[in-house]
């Protein structure tokens, strides 16, 4: 699929009218082609995992050093079609007052995701606006869009340079979000050239100033094929707040299906 000829189909339901909007028709050049290919190689090294479940601990720190933690479970269902995003289900375990709260998300690449929130105290399933992908996710320095950041077609790419990153050599690529409500003007990403994984991302806010820096650590391989980082450190440069994500071991290929990712299932998760 060629990104430069992307066309978004914007379905305006209320008037039953279809509008065709041509997207950022960036002029193809060698740097963007190379940047795209490196990102694609990284993204496609992950193809075929079908589904995964992982438990995660999130450590939040404010500028005064006050610390809090949350534990969550992430379930993911891979959708092979690159023009559609994966399906995800996040189940909150702690803090105890929000235990059982769940967020179901059907990702779209350039449009807003479909999202439902389950509130266990009322047993209420609520469709929520997902316009706000760039806001803090459960009080952390991660935005919701940061979790799905590696979807290939969410960005246009530009190859910048090659440089050392720790013991490895990384390709440095600029990526521009194509999603109109993204909280970022651009991101600079470091992808190593031995296992093709993201090692670092710098996030620039809408004004173009450096906002956050993400470091991805402790990569482990599953089934000799699927690499996952098990420690993510996000530092907010502007507010001095930080958040760490620490993952347990992933489980893959559990036979999850579409029917595990429907809103009708949200009331029966616990």
């Amino acid at each position, binding site marked *: 699929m060629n990104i430069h000829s992307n066309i978004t189909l914007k379905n305006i*339901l209320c008037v039953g009218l279809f509008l065709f909007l041509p997207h950022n028709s960036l002029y193809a050049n060698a740097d963007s082609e190379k940047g795209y290919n490196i990102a694609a190689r990284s993204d496609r090294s992950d193809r075929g995992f079908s589904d995964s479940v992982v438990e995660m601990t999130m450590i*939040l720190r404010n500028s005064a050093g006050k610390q809090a933690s949350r534990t969550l479970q992430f379930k993911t269902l891979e959708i092979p079609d690159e023009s559609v995003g994966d399906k995800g289900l996040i189940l909150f375990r702690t*803090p105890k007052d929000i235990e059982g709260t769940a967020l179901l998300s059907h990702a779209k690449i350039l449009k807003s995701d479909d999202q439902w929130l389950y509130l266990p105290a009322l047993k209420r399933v609520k469709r*929520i606006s997902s*316009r*706000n992908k760039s806001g803090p996710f459960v009080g952390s320095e991660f935005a919701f869009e940061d979790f799905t950041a590696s979807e290939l077609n969410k960005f246009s790419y530009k190859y910048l340079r090659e440089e050392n990153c720790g013991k490895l050599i990384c390709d440095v690529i600029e990526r521009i979000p194509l999603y109109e409500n993204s909280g970022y003007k651009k991101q600079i990403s470091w992808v190593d050239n031995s296992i093709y994984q993201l090692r670092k991302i710098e996030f620039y806010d809408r004004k173009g100033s450096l906002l956050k820096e993400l470091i991805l650590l402790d990569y482990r391989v599953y089934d000799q094929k699927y690499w996952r980082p098990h420690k993510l450190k996000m530092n907010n440069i502007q507010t001095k707040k930080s958040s760490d994500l620490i993952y347990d071991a992933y489980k893959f290929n559990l036979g999850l299906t579409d029917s595990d990712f429907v809103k009708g299932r949200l009331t*029966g998760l616990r």
Partner: protein
Amino acid sequence: MTVLKLPKSKQILYFFILLFISNSELAVADVYDEFDISGNIAFQLRGFTQDSMWLDQNTSDVESSISGEWEIRWRSNSNNQRVSFIPFARWDENDKKRSHFDFREAFWAYQNDDIELLIGLNKVFWGVAESVHLIDIINQTDLVENINQEEKLGQPMIRLAFQEDYGLLSFYLLPYFRERSFSGPDGRFRSETPVNADNAKYQSSSKRKHLDFAFRYSHYFGDIDLGLYYFNGTNRDPRMSIGGINSELLLNYDQIEQIGLDLQYTHSSWLWKLESFVRDGYADSIFAGVAGFEYTFYQVFDGIGDVGILFEYQHDDRSSVESITSADNDFFLGSRWTSNNINDGSILVGFILDKKTSETFYSVEAKTRLKENTLLSLELKVTTNSELGEPNFPQSRDDYLELQINHFF
């Protein structure tokens, strides 16, 4: 079970003793993967701003109470069976009727790819609106808990649900009816004549054992979420009448048929909402609806918190011989602030204005996490411009400020 033969006050006392023990000791059961034991204990303090209105009502301006809930869950290794058991109790200083005990959930469920069977007591919520939960019908309201009608009693049910490509189909058989809980003579939030809850009248000769039935379809189509149901059975909403030797307020539970609809259109920062029902029962058919929107401004002020604006209009055309509703011709305007910070603080401010009578109801609900396992919440409810004969008049001197601390374990 012998414990059920004990007087209610003893049952509640034993419940709290067990709850305090389990808080420290029984949590070890957590080590077994399939089991999950958790719960919370809450201390609540309500301060009333005016003296009580009616004879025999407790004259104290401050009312304290303790509530507790225990959640015991089990899930089979194969993941297709689960059991949930949630006993709840409250002890209230002043109102004997508010001191009560209930099973919010006590069920066994089996689930495979697209079928779920659930047998036991459970809670089910239907609806999209914020100012009134109009179409929510399966569970009886536990009114002594909160006048916001969001607290529910566990409903005995057999539910069979099919997840199809075209949506979720759920069938409910409801073999036993739960009566609404009302404040006792000592308590606040009562009518001039206290409700005689022990002598309810039923239209059906099977009384509480009438077999109620419901069927619901729910799904989403792009940005539209839709729910549609049919209910046939005992009205959860009792009609009041004066009778008996002491001219008491009696409750009448009629047989009704009801069709309900909930609809939400989600686009960008907008949520457009509609709930509506048509009910056939005691007198003429009733049509009721609530419609409105919620719009959210994201990352305002400090760049972190969100502010939502809510507007809803409530309509209900029932006649005066039916059960009482105050949501007949009212505007609701509200605002919700969520902090999105470490403490997950939030504030919801709202007021409901009756277009015809100018009766106005103000509400503030705020909460923040104090520590990892401790939640502080605040609630303010005020009624103004309520005149004799209007639905909220008997409770118009029950304005209160509530502080609650929840400890979770």
